[in-house]
C-alpha cells in the first residue's frame, strides 16, 4: 500500500478511542450496551488501522533508515515553528502491533469484569482515553507530543487507579501515582528543555537519527562539569522513565496502583504506562551511545545500575507478598528493571524484545489474577448469599481496603475475608481450568521456561548480552549479569510459589471451594494472550541458535522469521548493533535459572501444597520475611523523609514566616507610618491650618463614603504618601 495511505492510517490510529471517550462522556454515559459498542468498536478500529500499518512495514528491513514521516507546524517558538507529526519506524511499528492487541483484549475482558459496576460507562470512557493516549505516544515523532500523551496517560491512570474514589486507599494510591511520576517528569521536562536549547528541535529524527547533532551533543560539555551534554540530557530524560516505568527509587507507586480495577492494572502493567517509559528510553538510546562513544559512560552506568537494583529489589519483595496482584506488581517492577539494565549495557534489541514479550505475559497474568479474584469473590458471595445483586461490582473495591487504614462502613460486615490473598485460595485448578492453564502459561513465560515460552527467549537475550559484555571486560555487564541471574532465580521461585499457592492442593477457604470459572468474555482474552505468551518469542531466535543438538535458529529460518526483530528494530540505531556471536553459556545459565527457581518453588509449595491454617514456608525467614513483606520499608522511609518533612516545612513557613515575619514587618512599618502621619497631622493642624483644612475637607468627603470601612487611616496614609512623594522627588532631582 502507498506510503500516504499508511501514514493516514497512522494519523488516524489514536483517534477512535479518544473520540470514543468523548462520545461516552458526553452522550452515552447512561447507556451501557451502547457504551460497550463504542468503546470496543473504537479500539477495534484502532487495531485494524495499526495492524494494516504494521503488516505492511514489517517486512521492510530498510524502514529504520527511511521511516514514514509526516508533520505540521503546531507551536511557533521565537522565530521558528515547532512541528509535530507522526512517524512509523521499526520501534513504533512494533508497538502498533502490541498495544492495540493487548488493549483490545483488555477492553473485551473489562466488558464482563466491570459489567455490574454502577459507573461502568465512566470506566470504559477512561480506558478508551488511556488506550488512545498510548497510541498517540507511540506514533509521535517528537518529544513534545510524546510528552503530551505521556501526561494524558498520567491523568488517565490517576482517574482509573482512583476509580473507587470513595475509598481512601484508592484515591491515595491515585494521588501517589500522579505525584511520584511527576517527580520523574520534572527531570524529563528539564531534559526536554535542555535538548531543545542545544539542538533547536525535539524531533526524534532530527536529533537521534542525525549524526551531526549527536556528535555535537557528545562534544559539548554539560552544565555539570565532567559530563557531556549528551549524557546529561539523556539522564534527565531517563528520569521520566524512572518515574513512569517505576524504577528504583520511584517504584513505590506501582504496587499501590493495583487499587484500581484489575483491567486497569493490566493496562498499566502491560499495554500502556510502564511500557511508555521504556519506549521513551529506547527512543533516546542513541544519545547514551553517542556519549559512551566519546568516553562518557555516566549515562549507561547509572541506567545499568538502576535497572539491576530494581530487578533484584522487585524480585525480592515479590517473594514476601501474599496478595496475588501485589506479587505481580513487584514482578513488573523487577522485569522492567531487566529491560532498563539491558539498555544500560547497550542491549537495545534485547530490551525491546523483552518489553514485547513481557507485555503479553504480564497482561495475561493480570487478567488471569482478575479472573481468579472474580471467581473466589463469586464463591464467597455464593456462600454468603445475601440476595444483593451488585456483588460483581465490588470485587475490587470490596477488598482493596484490606490492610489499609480503612475498614469503614461495609454493609456486608465481613471485611476480614480478602479474595486477593493467596492464603485464601488453593485448589482452583479443577474449579477454574481455563484460568489455571492460561495463568500457568503466563507464569512459565515469566519464569522463562526454556524454548516453549516467549519469556525465555527475551530474558535469554538480555543475559546473553550481559554475558558477552562481561567476557569482554565490561564491569557494568558483570554486575548486571550476576544481579539479573539472582533476580531471575527469585522470579522463577515466586512465580512457582504463586501458581502453587493459588491453584494447587485443596481449597484453603470456603470461598475458594465454591469458586467457579468465568464467562467467555473473560476467558477468551486469556486464551489469546496465552497464545502470544508462548509464541511471540520465536520472532527473534538468532540464526545460529543451537541447544541440545536442536537447531532452533535453522528451524526459525525455515519459517523465515529468524532474528526478525533484531534485524527490524536494530535498524533504528544509527550504527547497527552488531549481532552477537551465539554463545551457549548464557543459554545454559537461563535453563539452570529456570530449573533452580522452579525446583525451589516445587519443593516448598508443589509437592505438599499449603493446607488451611498452615504457615507459609517463606515466613521461616523471620526478620527477612518481615522486611520483604513490608516492602523493605520504602513507603515508611519516604513518608518520614519527604512527606512529613514537607508538611512541617509548609506549616512552618505558613505560620512563622508568612504570618509571622513578613506580616509582623508589614504591621510594624504601618505603625511607624501611622506615627509619622500623626506627627504630620499635628504639624498640619497647627501650622499649615488653611491648606490642611482644604485638603482635609476633600479627604473627609471621600472618607464619608467609606465610613463603614474604617476611620481615618486612609486619609493619614494618602497625606503621608503625598508628602513622601514630594520629599523623594526632590531627592531624585537633586541626586540624579
Amino acid at each position, binding site marked *: 500500500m502507498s506510503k500516504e495511505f499508511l501514514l493516514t492510517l497512522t494519523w488516524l490510529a489514536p483517534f477512535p478511542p479518544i473520540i470514543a471517550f468523548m462520545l461516552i462522556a458526553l452522550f452515552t454515559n447512561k447507556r451501557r450496551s451502547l457504551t460497550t459498542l463504542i468503546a470496543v468498536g473504537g479500539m477495534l478500529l484502532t487495531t485494524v488501522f495499526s495492524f494494516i500499518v504494521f503488516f505492511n512495514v514489517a517486512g521492510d528491513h530498510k524502514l529504520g533508515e527511511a521511516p514514514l514521516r509526516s508533520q505540521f507546524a503546531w*507551536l*511557533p*517558538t*521565537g522565530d521558528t515553528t515547532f512541528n509535530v507529526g507522526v512517524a512509523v519506524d521499526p520501534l513504533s511499528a512494533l508497538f502498533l502491533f502490541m498495544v492495540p492487541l493487548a488493549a483490545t483484549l483488555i477492553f473485551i475482558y473489562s466488558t464482563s469484569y466491570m459489567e455490574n459496576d*454502577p*459507573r461502568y460507562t465512566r470506566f470504559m470512557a477512561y480506558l478508551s482515553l488511556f488506550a488512545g493516549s498510548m497510541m498517540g505516544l507511540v506514533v509521535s515523532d517528537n518529544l*513534545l507530543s510524546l510528552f*503530551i*500523551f*505521556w*501526561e494524558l496517560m498520567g*491523568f488517565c491512570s*490517576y482517574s482509573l487507579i*482512583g476509580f*473507587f*474514589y*470513595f*475509598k*481512601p486507599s484508592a*484515591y*491515595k494510591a*491515585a*494521588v501517589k501515582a*500522579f*505525584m511520584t511520576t*511527576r*517527580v520523574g*517528569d*520534572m527531570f524529563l*521536562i*528539564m531534559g526536554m*528543555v*535542555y535538548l531543545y*536549547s542545544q539542538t533547536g528541535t525535539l524531533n526524534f529524527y532530527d536529533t537521534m537519527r542525525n549524526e551531526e547533532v549527536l556528535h555535537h551533543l557528545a562534544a559539548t560539555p554539560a*552544565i555539570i562539569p565532567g559530563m557531556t551534554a549528551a549524557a546529561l540530557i539523556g539522564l534527565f530524560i531517563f528520569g521520566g522513565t524512572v518515574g513512569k516505568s517505576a524504577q528504583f527509587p520511584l517504584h513505590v507507586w506501582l504496587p499501590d496502583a493495583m487499587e484500581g480495577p484489575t483491567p486497569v492494572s493490566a493496562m498499566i502493567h502491560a499495554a500502556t504506562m510502564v511500557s511508555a517509559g521504556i519506549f521513551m528510553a529506547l527512543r533516546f538510546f542513541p544519545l547514551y551511545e553517542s556519549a559512551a562513544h566519546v568516553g562518557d559512560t555516566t549515562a549507561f552506568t547509572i541506567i545499568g545500575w538502576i535497572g539491576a537494583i530494581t530487578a533484584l529489589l522487585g524480585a525480592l519483595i515479590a517473594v514476601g507478598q501474599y496478595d496475588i496482584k501485589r506479587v505481580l506488581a513487584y514482578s513488573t517492577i523487577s522485569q522492567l528493571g531487566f529491560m532498563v539494565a539491558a539498555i544500560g549495557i547497550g542491549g537495545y534489541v534485547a530490551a525491546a524484545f523483552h518489553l514485547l514479550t513481557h507485555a503479553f505475559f504480564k497482561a495475561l497474568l493480570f487478567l488471569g489474577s482478575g479472573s481468579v479474584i472474580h471467581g473466589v469473590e463469586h464463591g464467597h458471595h455464593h456462600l454468603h448469599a445475601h440476595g444483593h445483586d451488585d456483588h460483581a461490582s465490588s470485587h475490587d*473495591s*470490596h477488598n482493596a*481496603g484490606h490492610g489499609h487504614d480503612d475498614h469503614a*462502613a*461495609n*454493609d456486608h460486615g465481613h471485611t476480614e475475608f480478602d479474595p486477593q490473598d493467596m492464603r485464601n485460595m488453593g485448589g482452583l485448578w479443577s474449579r477454574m481450568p481455563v484460568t489455571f492453564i492460561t495463568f500457568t502459561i503466563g507464569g512459565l513465560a515469566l519464569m522463562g521456561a526454556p524454548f516453549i515460552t516467549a519469556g525465555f527467549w527475551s530474558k535469554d537475550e538480555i543475559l546473553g548480552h550481559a554475558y558477552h559484555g562481561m567476557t569482554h571486560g565490561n564491569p557494568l555487564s558483570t554486575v548486571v549479569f550476576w544481579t539479573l541471574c539472582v533476580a531471575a532465580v527469585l522470579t522463577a521461585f515466586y512465580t512457582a510459589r504463586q501458581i502453587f499457592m493459588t491453584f494447587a492442593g485443596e481449597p484453603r477457604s470456603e470461598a475458594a471451594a465454591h469458586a467457579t470459572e468465568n464467562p467467555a468474555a473473560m476467558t477468551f482474552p486469556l486464551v489469546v494472550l496465552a497464545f502470544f505468551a508462548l509464541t511471540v518469542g520465536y520472532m527473534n531466535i538468532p540464526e545460529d541458535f543451537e541447544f541440545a543438538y536442536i537447531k532452533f535458529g535453522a528451524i526459525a529460518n525455515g519459517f523465515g522469521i529468524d532474528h526478525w526483530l533484531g534485524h527490524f528494530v536494530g535498524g533504528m540505531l544509527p550504527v547497527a548493533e552488531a549481532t552477537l556471536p551465539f554463545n551457549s553459556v548464557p543459554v545454559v545459565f537461563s535453563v539452570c535459572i529456570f530449573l533452580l527457581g522452579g525446583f525451589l518453588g516445587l519443593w516448598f509449595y508443589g509437592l505438599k501444597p499449603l493446607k488451611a491454617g498452615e504457615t507459609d514456608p517463606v515466613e521461616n525467614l523471620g526478620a527477612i520475611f518481615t522486611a520483604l513483606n513490608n516492602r523493605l520499608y520504602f513507603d515508611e522511609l519516604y513518608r518520614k523523609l519527604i512527606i512529613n518533612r*514537607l508538611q512541617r*516545612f*509548609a*506549616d512552618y513557613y505558613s505560620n512563622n514566616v*508568612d504570618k509571622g515575619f*513578613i506580616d509582623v514587618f508589614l504591621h510594624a512599618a504601618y505603625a511607624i507610618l501611622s506615627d509619622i502621619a500623626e506627627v504630620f497631622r499635628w504639624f498640619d493642624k497647627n501650622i499649615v491650618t488653611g491648606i490642611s483644612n482644604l485638603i482635609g475637607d476633600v479627604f473627609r468627603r471621600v472618607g464619608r463614603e*467609606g465610613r*463603614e*470601612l*474604617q476611620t481615618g487611616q486612609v486619609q493619614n*496614609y*494618602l497625606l503621608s*504618601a503625598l508628602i*513622601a*512623594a514630594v520629599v*523623594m*522627588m526632590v531627592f*531624585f532631582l537633586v541626586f*540624579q
Partner: protein
Amino acid sequence: MYIYSLMLSLITFIPVIGALLIILLSKQLSRTIALVASLASFVVALLVLNSFNNAQAGFQFVEVAPWIPQFGISYKLGVDGISLWLMMLTVFIFPIAIWASSGAIQHDQKIYYALVLLMETATLGVFLSLDMFLFYVFWEFALVPMYFIIGLWGGQRRIYASLKFFIYTMAGSVLMLIAILVMGVQGQTFDYEALVKQGLHSANMSLFLAFAIAFAIKVPMFPFHSWLPDAHVEAPTPGSVILAAVLLKMGSYGLIRFNLALFPQASQQFAPVMIMLAVVGILYGAIVAFAQSDMKKLIAYSSVSHMGYIILGIFSMNELGVQGAILQMINHGLSTGGLFLVVGYIYERMHTREMGKMGGLWAKMPVYGTVALLFVLSSVGLPALNGFVGEFVILQGAFQRNPLWTGLATIGMVLGAVYLLTMYQKVFLGKGKDEAVDDHGHHRQVASASHGLLDLNWRELASAIPLIVFCFYIGLASTPFFNAMSASVGKLLK
C-alpha cells in the same frame, strides 16, 4: 471611518457609561446594564482583535489628544501585540465576573455593579495607556473600586484585608509616581514611545527599582505577597476572580512594558535577582499553599507560585521567555479565575471554604467535580490544557538564561501537582463528612448538614464554560496567540 480611530477609547469608557446608567436607573436593572456594558466593550475589543495587524510591531489604533501640554502630558492610547492579549483577557473576564455576581452580592447591588464597571475601565486604561502620567492615573484609580469591593462585600476580616491591599499597593506605587515624574521632567514629555526612543535612563538602577517594586507588589512577587491571601480570602467570589485574573496582571504587564522597555540595561543587571526571587516565589508559594486548609488561601498561594513563572519568563529577557510569560498571564487568568469561581460555587452552598469540612462531593455533584478537575489540571499544567504551553515556553526561555534556576523552577511543577491534587482529593474524593458511603459507592445519609447539595445549575455552568473552552483552545492551538505577540515582543527586546 472616524469611529475606528476611537475604538480603544470606546472599549475603555463604555463601562463608565454603564456605571453612570446604573447609578441613574433602577436597582433591578443594575446587573443587566453591567452585563450589557461589559459585553459591549468585549464586542468592540473583538473588532480590534479582528483588524489587528500581526506583522506590525509598533502600536496600532493609536489615539492622541493633548491633555496638559505644558508638561508634555497627553491622552494617548494604543495597542500592540503585548497589550492586545491583556485587553482581551480583561474584557473577557469582566462579563464572567459580573455574571457570577448574582449569588455572592446580596446588598447594595447598585454601587457594586457601578464599581465593577469602573474597575474595568481602570484596568483597561492601564493596559492601553501610552502616556506615563495617564497610565499612573489609571493605575491608582484601579485600586479604589477593589478596595470598596473587598471592604463592603467581603468576609469577616474585610477591613484588615482591604486596608492592607490598598496601602501596600499604594506604597509601592508612590515610588513609581516619583520615577514617572523624574522621567517626565527630564525627558520633557510623558509620552511612552518618546521616552523609550530617548533611552535616557536605560541603565538607571534607581528608576528601575522604583518601577519594579511597584509592580512586584502588585504581581505579587515574593516577599511582597502577603496581602494577596488576605485580600482573596475576604473578597467576594467575583472580586477574587477579577483580582486574580486581571489585577495581578497589571504588575507583570508593567514589568514588561516599562521595566524591560525603558531600562533594558538595568533590567539586564537586575535579571539575576529577579529570577532568583521568581524561583524562590515559585517554591515558597507552592510549599505554603500545601499547608493551607482554606481553599481560597490555597489558591491564593498557588497564584504566588504561578506568577513566579511569569516573572521568570519576563526576566529571561529573550523572546521565548517573554512570549511564554504573556501567554501564561492569560492562562493564569483563565485557570485561577476558574478556580476561584469553583470555590465560590461551593461557598454559596456550604458557607465554608474549609477543606476539612468537605469530602466526597464528587458523588453529589459530578458536574461540579468535572469542572473543578479541569481547572485544577489546567493549573497543574497538564498538556493539552493551557497551562502547559505557557510553562513549557517559559522554561525554554529561562533555560537559555539560567539552567540552574530553571531546574529549581521545575520542582514547582511537581509541588503544584501535590497541593492542587491534594486539595481536589480532600474536597471531592472519599466520603462526605455527613454521610457514610459503603465500599460499593452507595450512599447512606447520616446527618443532613450538607445534605441536599445541588449540582451546578445552568447559570453557574455558563460562567465556567467560556473559561474551559479557552483552556482547551490555548492548550491545543496556541499559534494565533503567539503570532499576534511575536513582532511586538521582538521589537521590545531589541
